């Protein structure tokens, strides 16, 4: 039990995917202008991350390891994630149009999100079992959402402030993100 909790909180805070491992920086800057959209993106990532983790874990155990094809890990996982995102999008469109409307625009963005590939590869690297894999994915997704919402909150405040022209937009967001990452590194010490 303790180990599960450690994996979970470790993924949320200490090894935060965005601020510590620097994965998924594109959506981190792209959709962190409004808290609302960043929340939607976070939910979509949580959804896909957990599903992708489970499927890639099973695939690794049942196919790649059995056939001695560990070196095909990366390309296989990319294939899985791309197909999975497409499938989830179609599935949501049919089953829950409301959810599709909320998450729909973010789903294609996740197809090539390195955070998803990162978690799938890390799960295998760390030798997690299925339960640990799921917990790790959930924690990482929560950490991703947390980082996104924190930056969105800062950027919403920045919008009404008088930022020098040269820093307006992405530069000031990058500086804020850097300071945020610095603050998160405090968890490790």
């Amino acid at each position: 039990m303790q180990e599960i909790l450690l994996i979970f909180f470790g993924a949320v805070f200490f090894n935060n995917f965005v601020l510590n491992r620097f994965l998924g920086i594109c959506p981190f800057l792209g959709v962190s202008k409004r808290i609302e959209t960043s929340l939607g993106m976070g939910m979509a990532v949580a959804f896909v991350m957990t599903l992708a983790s489970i499927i890639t874990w099973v695939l690794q155990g049942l196919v790649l390891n059995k056939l001695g094809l560990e070196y095909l890990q990366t390309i296989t996982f990319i294939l899985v994630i791309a197909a999975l995102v497409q499938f989830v999008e179609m599935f949501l469109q049919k089953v829950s149009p409301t959810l599709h409307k909320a998450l729909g625009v973010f789903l294609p963005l996740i197809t090539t999100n390195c955070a998803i590939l990162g978690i799938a590869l890390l799960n295998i690297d760390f030798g997690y079992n299925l339960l640990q894999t799921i917990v790790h994915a959930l924690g990482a997704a929560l950490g991703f959402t947390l980082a996104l919402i924190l930056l969105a909150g800062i950027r919403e405040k920045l919008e009404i402030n008088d930022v020098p022209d040269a820093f307006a937009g992405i530069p000031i967001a990058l500086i804020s993100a850097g300071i945020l990452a610095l603050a998160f590194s405090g968890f490790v010490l």
Partner: protein
Amino acid sequence: MLIDILIPIVTMTALAVLFAGILAVANIAFSVEKDPRVEEILEALPGANCGACGYAGCAAFAEAVAKGEAPVNGCPVGREKVAEEICRIMGVSGEQESEAERHTARLVCQGTHEAAKTKMDYHGVQDCRAATLINGGDKTCPYGCLGLGTCVRACPFDAIQMGDDGLPDIDQELCTGCGKCVEACPKDVISMFPSSAEVMVACNSKAKGAPVLKACKVGCIACGKCVKVCPQDAISMVDNLAVIDSHKCTNCGTCIEACPTNAIVRV
């Protein structure tokens, strides 16, 4: 040796085919019927996503039109041309829809370099928003147009040009009424007017008579002459500024004659 190459190739191919199969099945099983007209309407729209129609972008407007919630001529940017196209797609005749009155942006200031005095030389960032931060800009009148062209840059349709007299010139034909310049102007000196309103008060000053006279030759000094002469009772004084009620105004022009500072003009 051969088997070492074959196994990964076969595995990857099998996986790819498997996923392709799943996606193909899902495509049929989860297909959602979409109104093909939405796409067509979206094609016909200007695609500026300006939001002037009141919907969140062109896609949302196209969807609303297809559902019958929005009028076919609801796009103020595309006007008749786009409305005709959408009519064709929707299969309705354009006359059925009453034409919404066009609103365009107009500058409510006549403070040219000549007419309006300045209180300092401004050499800072050439942007009205920046100039406003420094003691309200270089014009003596705190309500007037600064003429640094923030609205020109805000206009997505190139309808605003900066004139030689230091005031932006808004092309009423090109203006689509999207309101981007109204939003961008830090002085709130651009307002939306219905096209029927030919007579307008071209001043934004809420100051009393004396300071207006000192700052500008063509400012509204709140003398109230126009209020008295208006045969329709369409003019009232709000915050030391004459306001014309466009519903009552008949564009007779009596007030233009009466105004001692020529702050009321015919467009």
